[in-house]
């Protein structure tokens, strides 16, 4: 079930009303209901993969208890490794098995050995596997590092692992935040629900109007890049940047908004990354739940930035490579990760990786300074360039795409694949950027305007825009579901 489907718009009110009107007096029953709803939500895609979520839940529930039970560091570590091996094993099999086999065959071919692999399997990728495995692992890690006590409430824990708003594409929650809310009584809050509905509306806008409207253009340009001039290729990468942002942050907003309806606050995953002033700031604003996961559970255990410059550089390189690999079983993602490591390390060495941590562009003024505009444009250009690797089906395609900038420089007007007027899209992007700038200080309040009438007009314009750009013929699934 996807958020932007008819099924979800029937499912959500039913679950919401039952949750608050029928079951509000009993926390346990509420949690069981959340669990069943989440399993129904996930099983709508493919009920067979529910078994994987259930297995992951059982393993980490037991591992958590075992880690806590033992005081011996070695035994605790062994139990932690149980969780890592199991969850990474699931990922390795379902997500990376064919990649490893194909890479092995390619490597042998490079050395002159022609191997015909019979090992490649037809494996379906379970939706959201990269998200919930990381979430359950974080639980084991947190208990191991003594940041958290394990729960003995199996059903509550199962509801934490499978909580439907964030199950398939995050935010990747930490048990310290989400599990504690699930295990404690929630009370209905009108303000929280209204805030959730606003976020759902804003998320749908980003998905339907920004991501889905740009998708056919991006698909066309990346599929036929060799026939287009540099101006169109440039537009392709800029539009893809907005598409992937609209798609993923739109999903996150809907997830956070939906959770609010159930009295649960999820962590922020996006804080206007398009206004980042350097690559380090970008990573503090883009897919925050994953970046912080890698920071907490890989970067810091490896020594972080306190282990000397060389080791720090090594650690940065590791987390970016792993982050790239997390996105998918393709060299393009690894290359994308490596590219980001290369552009991040100079910022780190200059000591500018945390200077923008607590401020936003135009922090104390209405308009940004020219310097800030330049910084934002440069960062956006770097990040968008890296997305050529992210979007291309193969490394050779990515380089061929870049090569076309040189072999076919120049400008030619671009025709929308369905013949729509391109001016609409340029205006759309411009208005979106301006609006995001206006709300840049609080990602949780996209409609923070003083007057009710202004807010209402904006709601209606947002909904009208969704109708104006709605396309019944396109695939409406979210990009990050494939990860």
């Amino acid at each position, binding site marked *: 079930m996807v958020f932007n489907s*008819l099924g979800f718009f029937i499912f959500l009110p039913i679950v919401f009303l039952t949750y608050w009107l029928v079951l509000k007096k009993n926390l346990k029953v509420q949690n069981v209901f959340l669990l069943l709803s989440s399993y129904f939500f996930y099983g709508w895609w493919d009920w067979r993969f529910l078994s994987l979520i259930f297995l992951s839940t059982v393993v980490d529930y037991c591992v958590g208890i075992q880690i806590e039970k033992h005081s011996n560091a070695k035994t605790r570590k062994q139990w932690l490794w149980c969780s890592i091996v199991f969850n990474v094993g699931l990922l390795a099999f379902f997500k990376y098995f064919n990649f490893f086999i194909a890479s092995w065959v390619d490597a042998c071919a490079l050395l002159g050995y022609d191997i015909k692999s019979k090992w490649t399997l037809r494996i379906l990728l379970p939706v959201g596997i990269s998200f919930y495995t990381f979430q359950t692992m974080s639980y084991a890690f947190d208990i191991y590092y003594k940041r958290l006590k394990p729960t003995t409430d199996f059903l509550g824990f199962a509801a934490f692992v499978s909580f439907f708003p964030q199950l398939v594409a995050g935010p990747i929650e930490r048990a310290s935040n989400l599990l504690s809310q699930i295990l404690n009584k929630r009370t209905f809050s009108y303000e929280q629900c209204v805030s959730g509905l606003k976020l759902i509306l804003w998320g749908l806008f980003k998905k339907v109007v920004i991501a889905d409207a740009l998708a056919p253009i991006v698909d066309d340009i990346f599929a036929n890049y060799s026939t287009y001039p540099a101006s169109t290729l440039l537009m392709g990468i800029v539009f893809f940047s907005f598409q992937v942002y609209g798609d993923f942050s739109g999903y996150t907003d809907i997830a956070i908004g939906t959770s609010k309806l159930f009295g649960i606050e999820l962590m922020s995953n996006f804080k206007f990354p398009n206004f980042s002033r350097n690559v380090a700031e970008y990573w503090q604003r883009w897919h925050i739940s994953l970046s912080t996961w890698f920071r907490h559970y890989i970067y810091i255990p490896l020594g972080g930035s306190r282990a000397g410059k060389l080791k720090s550089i090594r650690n940065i390189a590791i987390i970016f490579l792993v982050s790239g690999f997390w996105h998918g079983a393709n060299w393009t993602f690894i290359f994308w990760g490596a590219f980001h490591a290369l552009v991040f390390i100079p910022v780190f060495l200059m000591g500018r990786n945390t200077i923008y941590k607590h401020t936003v562009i135009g922090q104390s003024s209405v308009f940004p300074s020219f310097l800030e505009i330049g910084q934002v444009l440069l960062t956006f250009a770097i990040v968008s360039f890296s997305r050529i690797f992210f979007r291309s089906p193969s490394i050779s395609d990515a380089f061929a795409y870049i090569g076309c900038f040189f072999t076919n420089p120049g400008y030619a007007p671009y025709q929308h694949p369905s013949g729509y007027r391109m001016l609409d899209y340029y205006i759309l992007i411009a208005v979106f950027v301006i609006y995001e700038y206006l709300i840049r200080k609080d990602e949780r309040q996209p409609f923070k305007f003083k007057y009710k009438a202004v807010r209402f007009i904006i709601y209606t314009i947002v909904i009208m825009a969704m109708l104006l750009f709605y396309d*019944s013929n396109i695939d409406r699934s979210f990009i990050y579901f494939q990860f």
Partner: protein
Amino acid sequence: MKALILKSGLYLLLTLVALEGYVRVFHLTKDYPSRYVDVKGVEKWRPNQSGFSVTGNRRQNFSEYHINSSGFNSYREFEPTQDAVELALVGDSFIEGFHQNYYNSIGHKIETHLPDVNVYEFGYAGYDFADELHLVHAYKDLFDNIDYVFLGLKFENDLYRDAYHVLQERMKLESPLYKNLRKIKILTYAQSIGLLDPIRNAISHILNLSAKKTTSTTTQHKQHIEAEAHAKYIENFKTLITRYGYDKDRFILVLDTAKTPQIFLNYLKRYNFDYVDVSEDLKASKRPTTLIYDMHWNNHGRNIVAKCIVSYYNNNFTKK
């Protein structure tokens, strides 16, 4: 909770009102002319109405229609005489031409090429061959004054029936319920952009759950079914021309031979049915001949079709 439900309901209502306003102010959706069945049993548009036809979410195609006193979209009235040279175009939505301004129709284009000829367009969305022949038959006196009648025919779509009768399904659209629903512009807009498709699909999916599932068929079986259907369509054609009459000296079919099976083309040749083939010229065009959002001919496509008819006229007819 009560406050949330009440306020959500209120906001929903206000939002719908605002959206209705936007759709009306920016004219984002089409107007629906009303239809009726006249005293001769012919289904057509109610005379003397005007409005706008809109296609796409963002008014990608916007055109004006004008229904004349005969009940068809045209810039002129239909008053054929014995003296003038007159052509009639009879057909479905392609001839009706709601997708272009009514003063830029195929008939008008033909008149530009043939200044001494008057062209009357009897186009109505959904007309099949039974509708067309019944219309000509019902208005025999009028059509007898017209020198040549061009009848649009799409073999795969237009020969399902062997006799004319009013399609009640289509006339249901004139029921008070539908008429009132169509007054809600946001609803017609939502329907036209496909927003209501998931609801409709879900309902039909639920209704079809109990229905028998069709089994997959082999290519051979499909070919057999297709051949049977084609034979039936040809039989229907024969029955229709026998039932309503067909003047081979004055009636000419307009068809796309690329989409017409050879068996029917052979039949037409064998029995001396004349036809204008628009397929080659449409296919040879380097520019698109249909609208981008819709399969109907665009202005360029209509120019080509008009030229095909003009060329046929010049090559074959002189004033009787």
